[in-house]
């Protein structure tokens, strides 16, 4: 946040410090990534408060598991993975049943505005999606997993992931068209 809040350390130095554990390194590591990870948490949550809870839980895991980070790939990528996994743990615990119903192509609504929205606005309508849609949408569209991987992560079939995603997209597009109002009232089918 503030430029004088820390002497700049590399990611590697921060990890080393956190493993001591050194409180100021822990704080710096958190400061470095908390906003980016909060953005991730908000996408998997239905409210700011849930997002904060998820961020808190996720970061505790990050610090506890830090010794297993072997420096392969970026630290940010590793932290993001831990945070996303925390969100998925919640999803699995809730035992949400996802079903796969193929959508006809012509059912897909106009998505032209969807890609051009501001993050804050898009977030609002993502948060209003049913949890299943939201999770699959995030994993596929933003995190970049493919449907087979999502199927494994969530314990669903590849086809279910596909149909969940296309329905999530359709619902998002519809929400945008209805000035972000409609999604809240649309029940999980």
């Amino acid at each position: 946040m503030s430029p004088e809040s820390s002497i700049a350390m590399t990611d590697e130095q921060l990890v080393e410090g956190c493993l001591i554990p050194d409180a100021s390194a822990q704080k710096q590591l958190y400061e470095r990534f908390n906003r980016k990870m909060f953005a991730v948490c908000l996408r998997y949550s239905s409210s700011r408060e849930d997002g904060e809870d998820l961020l808190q839980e996720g970061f505790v895991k990050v610090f506890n598991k830090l010794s297993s980070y072997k420096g392969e790939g970026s630290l940010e990528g590793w932290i993001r993975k831990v945070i996303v996994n925390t969100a998925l743990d919640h999803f699995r615990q809730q035992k949400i049943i996802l079903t796969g119903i193929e959508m006809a192509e012509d059912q897909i609504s106009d998505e032209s505005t969807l890609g051009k929205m501001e993050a804050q606005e898009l977030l609002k309508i993502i948060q209003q999606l049913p949890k299943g849609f939201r999770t699959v949408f995030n994993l596929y569209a933003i995190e970049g997993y493919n449907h087979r991987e999502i199927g494994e992560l969530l314990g669903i079939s590849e086809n279910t992931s596909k149909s969940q995603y296309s329905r999530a997209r359709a619902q998002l597009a519809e929400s945008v068209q209805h000035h972000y109002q409609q999604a809240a009232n649309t029940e999980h089918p």
Partner: protein
Amino acid sequence: MKLEDQLKNTFDHFEPEVDPSVWAKVSAQLPSSAPVFDGGSFVSSNILKSLVAKIAPFAGWIAGATVIVGLGIIWKLNSTEVVVPVQPVINQTNNVTLPINKVDIKQESTNEQQSGLDTKTEISKEINKVKSASSNPSKGQTFIAGHFSNNSTSEEIISSQNNSNKASSDNKASTNSVTTSSALNNKSTEILSSVNKTEVGNNQTSKTEDILVEPLLMLNTRGGFAPLSVTALTNQNGKKADFNFGDGTQINNVANASHRFDSPGIYTVKCIIAGREIETTVEVLGQLPTVFSPNGDGVNDQFIIGGAEVTSVDVHIYDRTGRIMLNTKGKQVIWDGAVLGGQLAEIGTYFYDIFATSNSGVTYKQKGTINLFR
């Protein structure tokens, strides 16, 4: 461009600010580290910076001294007891980013022997500080507690000795060590006495310098509706303090203290730690009920949030399943026990999140429950 790529771009630089309370909760769950709250790292890093600046002229010495400490040569013979507190943190030397070059060990060590002892102890003290400032605070604090013992209560001396036998700057401990080591080398006695001299001479200033992190008084909340439970703690790693909640409640000699405010008002919460007084304020707004009974009998039929003491309240009420019951903003928000669609809510417990902006312009976030009876 594919929709997915557009969406990724949308979130690429999205970095929303996080409520500081999240870090408070995270740090409270971390292993053996003092919670560093707002400003904590700022202060500690400033201490570090100022120390680095201060010792820059001795940089070469410190490099030499540090290496010697690590290897345990000559230095150990001369002044075992003085360096002992450093030993627990030797392995962390690499984490201190000092703008210094490594210097030839032998040359430096002879230099040290030729020069005055005062400078030497000065250096070792500075090393200790730098190390403790940049390494595990609990270890650093053990050391610092020793320094403190001159000015503080006997209980603290005992605890610092219990925590670590290595808190040798404690007067008693160092006297003991003199007896054991003086037979070997007279110099150690000299060093120790010069350490003591320096400490006595700098008593006024060293008292402030020896605090690892500037003491902060931390509260779980800065305000909200009564009854408001406030927990106060400091960032001094569980060190005992005296707390005063400003309404006649005084809780002494505890690491943290909790108190429930039942009446509205602005209270000054004070904490005395290590001879210093720190204070902050808590704003308690009007009373929130824990129960209401929307049955039309004219008694407690409504759950009323806000009113004269706030400029606005943003109220979210959920049922157990997380379904939203009420989502309203205003100077005063009233829930009559009806669901959004109009039908009556069931008897039971409901959860609220309230964002109340007081007349002083501060917004307080508060979570709680309300029981609905009919």
